[in-house]
């Protein structure tokens, strides 16, 4: 625990970058939150973004962006449209560019605020349940609270990084991002519990303070923690590179979360626990 300050500093830098981006650029919300339409088409004829935009805007629909995907299709984002407009756009594109419709999403403006609320409820329930479970399991609030703080650390890292990805690469916040975020909460605690478990086991056998046992527990669990993260990272990298556009950002979010979760267990959760105990001792002493 000598380098505790270094660990905290690394986390602080990553979080600061993310928070800076959050305040400067915010998050890039997708149609699930903002409302709007997404059309995905594949064309046999040659098209250009300008031609597509002017053709679609002739139906009085507002084009937000046109994006070419890796597999040769075009994703067109619009403000919400009526079914009549959608019908006309379909016919126009088919006639002019021999288009094939791959996907159509049209989300009304009322869905977004609901999704935000539902997400918050889900976050609160998961975090509380996990805090209670860890606290009960280790019969100590310290353990539960520090695990949840590490979990909070990971969420902030992921949200902040996603804001950067959104600004520079157009990653959108959709319901899959929310799903990934919740999954990361559990991953984060997963590793933390393994380290805590080691501390508890050594404590039973050898006794001593958490501070003394922490370094030992971390070095004993480090290899397994890294190895396990590697296997998860292999799967996620494969999904990220080969899985297609629909779940690319989902895999990316999980990947960032896994890396942050692996880091936060030994280098955030345990140092917080140790610091907590030291402060407790000082107060008592």
């Amino acid at each position: 625990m000598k380098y505790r300050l270094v660990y905290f500093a690394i986390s602080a830098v990553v979080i600061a970058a993310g928070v800076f981006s959050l305040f400067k650029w915010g998050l890039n919300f997708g149609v699930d939150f903002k409302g709007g339409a997404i059309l995905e088409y594949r064309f046999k004829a040659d098209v250009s973004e300008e031609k597509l935009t002017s053709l679609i805007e002739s139906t009085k629909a507002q084009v937000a962006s046109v994006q070419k995907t890796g597999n040769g299709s075009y994703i067109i984002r619009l403000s919400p449209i009526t079914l009549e407009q959608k019908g006309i756009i379909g016919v126009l594109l088919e006639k002019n560019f021999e288009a094939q419709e791959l996907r159509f999403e049209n989300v009304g403006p009322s869905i977004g605020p609901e999704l935000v609320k539902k997400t918050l409820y889900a976050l609160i329930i998961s975090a509380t349940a996990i805090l209670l479970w860890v606290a009960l399991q280790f019969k100590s609030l310290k353990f539960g609270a520090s695990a949840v703080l590490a979990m909070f650390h990971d969420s902030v890292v992921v949200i902040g990084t996603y804001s950067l990805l959104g600004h520079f690469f157009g990653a959108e916040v959709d319901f899959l991002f929310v799903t990934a975020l919740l999954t990361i909460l559990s991953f984060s605690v997963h590793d933390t519990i393994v380290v805590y478990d080691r501390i508890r086991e050594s404590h039973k056998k050898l006794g001593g303070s958490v501070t003394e046992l922490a370094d030992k527990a971390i070095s004993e669990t480090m290899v397994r923690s890294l190895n396990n993260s590697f296997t998860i990272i292999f799967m996620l990298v494969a999904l990220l590179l080969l899985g297609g556009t629909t779940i690319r950002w989902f895999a990316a979010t999980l990947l960032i979360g896994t890396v942050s979760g692996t880091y936060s267990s030994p280098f955030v959760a345990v140092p917080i626990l140790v610091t907590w105990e030291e402060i407790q001792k000082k107060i008592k002493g």
Partner: protein
Amino acid sequence: MLRLSSPAKKVILIFLLTLLAGFISLPHEFSLFGRNFTRPNINIQSGRFDIQKNLDLVLGLDLAGGSHLVFEADTSKLPAEKKKDATASVRDVIERRVNLFGVSEPNVQTGSFEGKDRVIVELPGIKDTKQAVDIIGQTAQLSFAEVKEASPSAILVPTSLTGADLSYARADFDKNTGKPVVSIEFTKEGGDKFAEITGATVGKPLAIVLDNQVISAPIVQEKISGGQAQISGNFSVDEAKKLAIELNAGALPVPVTLIEERTVGATLGAESIARSVRAGLVGLSMVLLFMVLEYGKLGLVADVGLIVFGVLTLALYKLIPVVLTLPGIAGFLLSVGMAVDSNILIFERFKEEKVRRPVADALEVSFGRAWDSIRDANISTLVTAFVLANPFDWQFLNTSGPVRGFAITLALGIGLSLFTGIVVSRNLLRVFIREDKITK
């Protein structure tokens, strides 16, 4: 006689289970060495038992193609206690309409969130959603009204005869003009009402009103007592068919509006599957390779366990059945990555323990010690999966299909990985390591 130790028996049992699961996991039709095979479905009949099970993967809308529609029912004018009934009846009417429209295996559900009542409609394999939405979204409130001539304009006086008095409607052609019409037949009661009304309005127009719009107002020539009538408007054949479906299914008690639509073409779905399978195979090979490189013989055992895990999971998806979505596949792949975790925990422990005691003992001790961590760590993931899957349909949480798909496959994966990580690997190791007597 050959006497088998207990772990060996278990290994044989696991082997047989895997074989069975492997059989279930096979695609319905496949070719091997240039020959084509067909996997039969379960069809057991014996006495009173009749078990039939289709062993094909159930694909969600985003993989098979189809349309997900959310309608909001306008229940704002109803008193609170009637809202639930109204939404349920909207659901029933929509379901009847969708069935009459000819969609196979539609899924129609109600949902509500903070006072807003919704009906969620899932239509697999539907490409032309406009037509479907037109049919579902129409209120189809049919009524008949007398027309009182009063200058400067005519006033409609509704009669007691409505769409509820219909027994049957059918798209038809007018015998004289050949134009598309909708033939209707009234119930006994409705027929009596109709006779009474037509008797009283001979020589005057009788307006046929659909959703507050007069579609025609023919002059009544004579009292009609047969309980049959014809609605003629300027219909196209499709419009007449649509109206017949709506009338047969009944009117919506409240108007609905479409607030969300997600449609995925079958092409994109098929591409998604192909990509996920490729990503999965690449990821899996990397995990398998990594385990062997890192743990040698032990890693090989973990790999066998992982393959058993994959086969069992696939079989379980088919047996339950789990509706597989794109995020669901991601959940499965993620659980593959996590499945070896219990093995890694145990092997790392084993490295420490084998210096202190004999190999076989070290193995048992490692399994025992690692189990606490494995259990505690996985429970937290199960908690999150529970919140995401929302199995009790709590309206304050997410009910979206893809998110649930992810949570369910992830939870199943974790559950099964505990089994394969502990039971399968443990017994495999007991049999092979002991008899192999590795002494390092």
